[in-house]
């Protein structure tokens, strides 16, 4: 049984008839995608299928040419409130120490410096890095940096967490550890999570919903799968393997389409003639 945490504090996100283009090229289209409060949805697909564009639209950092994005039934017209972003790199400000990074959003909220740093130490403790409070990001490993990013995320108490391939620069073991940390943050905060990944295994380990994205003819959501697997998930589980194979076939098909796209286009033109 799925152990989805209480959805009371997570935000609801809805994409309706979205179309976003860059320089006359359609980047992404989405007829309807609803991210339920407290859910963990993964956008899975090849590069260039518009995943990051959708994430930027969800964050309110960019706006669709057509359609709209709603946050708790309100159309987004600026940066989404109570939202945290985590990228693959450049998450921490390198000129600040670990505790200053975590304290930064608290200071933005008007908390006095001493108090904010005290709180930051507590958040760092939650990710096991309180002894590295005075270190600069350049003195820490990739995994430690992402843990500090998570600590800062916890500090902001977000209702929506948007992650753009946050663990793809990490080695396999650190990635597994970070996935567990993320699940813990999700379970404690009940925030809604929308995450981009290329990693099929990661998607299956984390998501309770996977939106499969295709890139041809334009970036679009090809299919939405509800992942009803028990947590903690076991990759050796038969159901896990079945879904993994299904997703693998989809991605393989997408790769083949991309490889043969020029041939297919040429064939299309011949057929039209």
């Amino acid at each position: 049984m799925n152990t989805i945490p209480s959805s009371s504090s997570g935000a609801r996100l809805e994409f309706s008839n979205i179309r976003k283009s860059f320089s006359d090229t359609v980047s992404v289209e989405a007829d309807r995608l609803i991210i339920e409060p407290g859910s963990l949805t993964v956008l899975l697909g090849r590069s260039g299928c518009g995943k990051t564009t959708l994430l930027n639209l969800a964050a309110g950092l960019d706006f669709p040419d057509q359609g709209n994005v709603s946050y708790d039934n309100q159309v987004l017209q600026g940066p989404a409130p109570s939202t945290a972003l985590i990228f693959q790199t450049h998450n921490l400000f390198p000129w600040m120490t670990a505790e200053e990074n975590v304290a930064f959003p608290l200071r933005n909220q008007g908390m006095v410096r001493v108090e904010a740093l005290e709180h930051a130490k507590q958040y760092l403790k939650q990710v096991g890095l309180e002894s590295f409070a005075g270190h600069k990001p350049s003195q820490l490993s990739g995994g430690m940096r992402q843990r500090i990013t998570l600590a800062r995320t916890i500090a902001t108490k977000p209702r929506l967490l948007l992650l753009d391939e946050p663990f793809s620069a990490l080695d396999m073991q650190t990635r597994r550890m970070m996935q567990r940390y993320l699940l813990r943050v999700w379970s404690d905060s009940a925030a809604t999570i929308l995450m981009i990944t290329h990693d099929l295994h990661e998607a299956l380990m984390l998501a309770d919903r996977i939106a499969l994205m295709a890139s041809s003819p334009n970036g679009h959501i090809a299919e939405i799968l509800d992942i009803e697997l028990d947590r903690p998930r076991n990759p050796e589980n038969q159901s896990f393997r079945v879904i993994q194979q299904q997703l693998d076939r989809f991605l393989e098909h997408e790769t083949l389409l991309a490889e043969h796209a020029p041939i297919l286009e040429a064939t299309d033109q011949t057929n039209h003639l």
Partner: protein
Amino acid sequence: MKPHVSEKSGHQLTLTGRVSQLLFKSNFLWFCLAWLLIILSWELGSWLEWLNPQILPPPSETIPYAFSGNITIGFGQQKTGLFESTTITLGRVGAGMLIGLLVSSCLAIMVIELPILRRLILPLVQSLAPIAPVAWIPFTIVVIGIGGPAAVFIVFMAVLGTMTLSLIAALDSIPDEYLKIAHNLGTSRIRMWWYIRLPAIIPSTMTAIRMSFFGAWMAVLAGEMAGLNSGLGYMIIMAQQMYNMKLVMVGILAIGFIGFAIDRLLLLINARLLQWVQ
């Protein structure tokens, strides 16, 4: 016995290592060595009468003169000394660079905050930047005169274009992720400038300041030589006119050493400020 021998040789190796480290890694030692070679060649040239000591006095005369503590030239109101001239020139460079940095920072902030101004300001700055600082000297002398403000203006014009372009380029190249995250963390506009943009551009700004300093240093000396009525450049020209070649040489060496020392100081500040750079 064996451990004792190895202990001794280890100690010797450490000493040798230290000496070689000093020799090969200490920039200061190499700096001293290079100058020692020049001074020795210069002295040898004078001794062998390859160099005319009336035009190029040997180091054995120039160096004691430099440290005699009573280096002055001119008469009455025109009288000036090495220390006084150096202080005036450094003050002009400092003031001109500070004003240049402030104005270029304001222009860069305006360009980032009001994108429409980018179209107005950038072409102007791009036209100003290629103008050699010395080209401003005749204009400045006619319009402002031959005093300190004219020298400060020349320095200001020498740094304005390049500093503004460097600052705008540095601000444009801040990784988008930093700004998106800071925005998302609820950072106000003022905090965004103070805590995100400013620290993010410090590495490239420090390089730009170092480069601008050389331009400003050369521009102010050229200005003082070309007609401004005080400063190190003026002192050298006066020494040349009064045929005090020892003072000409001391002035030239002072320009080099002060420029070098300030560049090292800026490098040191750079290293202190940028400990976070990977």
